[in-house]
């Protein structure tokens, strides 16, 4: 593995669910230290792609490598290299912030003697020191997201995957989180994020636009505007509409969506 080798390489990566082809032969590279956005409408295959790259979903075709490790054959090595923030919070709401971080430290094999410092450092970084012993259930969406981002960094990952990191946040929370992501970027972290927020994608080094499971365009925001915008002052929205069309992307609720909406009504705690 050389210094200049890309952090992520996907080659003809595909995934079918029965008849439906969620991702149909996607190829792209993310360089080390690059901030890369996967942009696409609902159901385009963004999350499926991220799940394959993070080894939690097996591809049905093609290959992918993260930091030089194959996501299927060397899943364990890939997992050690990456930090992940899911679209919806993946926290135990009945536990405190500290307890959630402690579980993470153990799962990633952070040595016992450095666990305490890692946990305190993460709380500090997320500006959650004062509420570290409060149960996560009482946290706002922004606090949960900051906690998850800090958690994803605790074990010193090389690549960070963010699935719609700012979704559901208010403008203040969004700004705060974005500043933190920016700081990571300045520190040279490789970040791959999915989004359908255009200003966020515009701030990335490179953007891949994905639709119906295919990569329809890839390049820096400036390149994309020049090549696909169709007018001199085109913004990323013009590019997006030009490439993915005007059709609405309505989806029926899945079993998972039903659970999420149940969760929002109080869910488990209504039992």
């Amino acid at each position, binding site marked *: 593995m050389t210094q200049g080798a890309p952090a992520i390489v996907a080659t003809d990566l595909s995934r079918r669910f029965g008849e439906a082809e969620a991702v149909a032969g996607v190829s792209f590279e993310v360089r080390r230290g690059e901030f890369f956005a996967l942009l696409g409408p609902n159901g385009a295959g963004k999350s499926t792609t991220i799940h394959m790259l993070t080894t939690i979903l097996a591809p049905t075709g093609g290959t992918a490598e993260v930091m030089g490790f194959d996501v299927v054959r060397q899943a364990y090595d890939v997992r050690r290299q990456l930090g*992940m923030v899911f679209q919806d919070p993946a*926290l135990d709401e009945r536990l405190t912030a500290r307890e959630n971080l402690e579980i993470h430290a*153990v799962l990633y094999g952070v040595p016992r003697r450095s666990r305490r410092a890692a946990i305190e450092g993460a709380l500090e970084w997320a500006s959650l020191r004062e509420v570290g012993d409060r149960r996560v259930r009482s946290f706002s969406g922004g606090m949960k997201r900051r906690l998850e981002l800090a958690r994803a960094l605790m074990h010193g990952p090389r690549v960070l995957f963010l699935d719609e990191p700012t979704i559901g946040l208010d403008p203040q929370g969004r700004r705060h989180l974005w500043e933190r992501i920016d700081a990571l970027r300045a520190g040279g972290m490789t970040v791959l994020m999915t989004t359908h927020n255009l200003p966020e994608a515009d701030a990335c080094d490179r953007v891949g636009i994905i639709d119906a499971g295919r990569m329809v365009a890839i390049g820096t925001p400036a390149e994309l505007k020049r090549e696909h915008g169709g007018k001199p002052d085109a913004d990323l929205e013009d590019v997006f509409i030009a490439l993915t069309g005007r059709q609405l992307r309505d989806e029926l609720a899945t079993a998972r969506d039903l659970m999420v909406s149940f969760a929002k009504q109080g869910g488990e705690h209504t039992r």
Partner: protein
Amino acid sequence: MSQDASAHLPGAAPGVGVRSWAGIAPSVVLVMWQREMRRYWRDRSQIFGGFSRTVLWLVILGFGLGASLREIEGYSYAQYILPGVIVLNVLFASLQCAIALVWDREVGLLREVVVSPAPMLSVTLGKLLGGATISLVQGSIPLLFAPFIGARLSVGGLLGAWLVIFFLGIFMTALGVIIASRLKTFEGFGSISNGVIQPLYFLSGAIFPLRGVIGGVGFLDIPDHLREELRRIGVFAIGGGWVVQLPEWIQALVYVNPVSYQLDLLRYFLLRFQQLPLVADLLVTFALPPVAAVVAAWFMGRMLKQR
């Protein structure tokens, strides 16, 4: 590597990976077990449920039905159902713990666990041991009422009972994990309570003996020598009633229900009263849970790959 990611976060320590032997990493098992225990202690409703079930079944039903059923093989009705009430608490505790997986998988911590390098076998093991420990605590609640219903427990009997409860907890949590892995969505525990817990409970001989039917006041007492004779042919006299076999279809259901055997052994330890072949009791109680645990780990792995 020139870029050390730990520079981004004060105190961040590079994970050294998870040391495991054949998929078993003690630190992971321990932390997942601890998580279950923390969740349990904070859920007052579960502890309250354990007490309310005990009061309803053991005290109210025990004394209520006990008023018309004078005895079952020399034990009062409340004493007879004591092991059953323990089993009922264990069924609720272990299945609640296991079914929470559906939740955990979609909107909880499990996704974070799945993407980590921790071996899934250890995660499953932590879950099963957690479910079994919660079962042990919840199953001990009815034991607190033992003096109140005149049941005298020996130290040996109590230790034996705890062993059975722990293994029953492992078994039922494993069964719950298998059910949870098949559930697509989950909006309440009612279906599990009505569809799994109650059939297993009612068809285990928990509230009526396997052979014999309920008589009661108004019947003449069966003379002791006849009682002995009946016992020899495997029929158990109840109170002053005439002894009849249960309908065959209920018998069949009781015999295929593994909980019947676990309960029978538990009743042996608590009351020295036992109705099924002892070998079957021991096999079902101690050999089945490890098998169920392996199957549960397999289902768990499959569930997470299918996402």
